[in-house]
């Protein structure tokens, strides 16, 4: 399989038989929403851990 055939297959794949705009926008939106969910959950957890570390660290200094 030459380079040109490879390119052709790739372009055909991206074209999605004429439905490229519909297929790729669907997959794109899903990817973004799932990614945002993961990031926000993870960041909330990390910042909470940091905050509690400070909270209990200060308590220890007081006593």
């Amino acid at each position: 399989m030459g380079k040109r055939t490879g390119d052709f297959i790739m372009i055909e794949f991206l074209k999605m038989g004429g439905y490229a705009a519909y297929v790729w926008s669907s997959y794109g939106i899903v990817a973004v929403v799932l990614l945002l969910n993961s990031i926000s959950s993870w960041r909330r957890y990390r910042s909470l851990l940091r905050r509690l570390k400070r909270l209990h660290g200060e308590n220890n200094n007081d006593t």
Partner: protein
Amino acid sequence: MSVKDKVWLWFHRMASPAYFYNLAGQLLPWSIVATTTLMLIGLIGGLVFAPADYQQGDGFRIIYVHVPSAWMSMFVYMVMAVNSAIFLIWHIKLSDIVARSSAVIGASFTFLALITGSIWGKPMWGTWWVWDARLTSELLLLFLYLGYIGLRSAIDDRRVAGKAGSILALVGAINIPIIHYSVVWWNTLHQSASVSKFDNPSIELNMLIPLLSMALAFKLFYLCILLINSRSELLEQEKRSQWVKELVTSS
């Protein structure tokens, strides 16, 4: 010890905050690996190996994100409703945490089911939206999720918020069978189920396998989010307790 006692012991250990926090932490890496693997299988299978549909061409490939999102929108709601019931009846705090931790991801799945359905509807039905039974009841589900999130954040007292949210989630559960049977009860534009007829599924195997793989991947993705969110909720609720203190000072 009788079986019943053992079950109760297990139940109580599971519901103990420190125990659940650790268990969730141990499960998380495995869920992430499983989610990623299944999602890759589903994506490659669905976008590359599944043959184009004889009517819809490559446009049908939206099914691999649309159907799992739609299934999850109902599944997550059922998890919320069941946990709300457990919380209202037995006052198990962990159940409230699970329900609360599911709301945003559940709303996200519902939003995705609606938006990918809309994008799919345009080339196939010639319209972005119709007020038919399936679409309308799914939109109502999104409003139920948003109402639940809004209600909980509007009430400061955690116990009151939990109770009010649980009641809302339970009442709204009536909508789930309506969504499911909407395509049977009413004459709708939305097609009826093609996968759940397990004795005779009207879908080919190399189209079906990526779909099931994606569905499982979405379910496990929800599990990952649930594990992280409930750990956060536990930390927040138990921030003054001894086990949290030991946890944050030791690491």
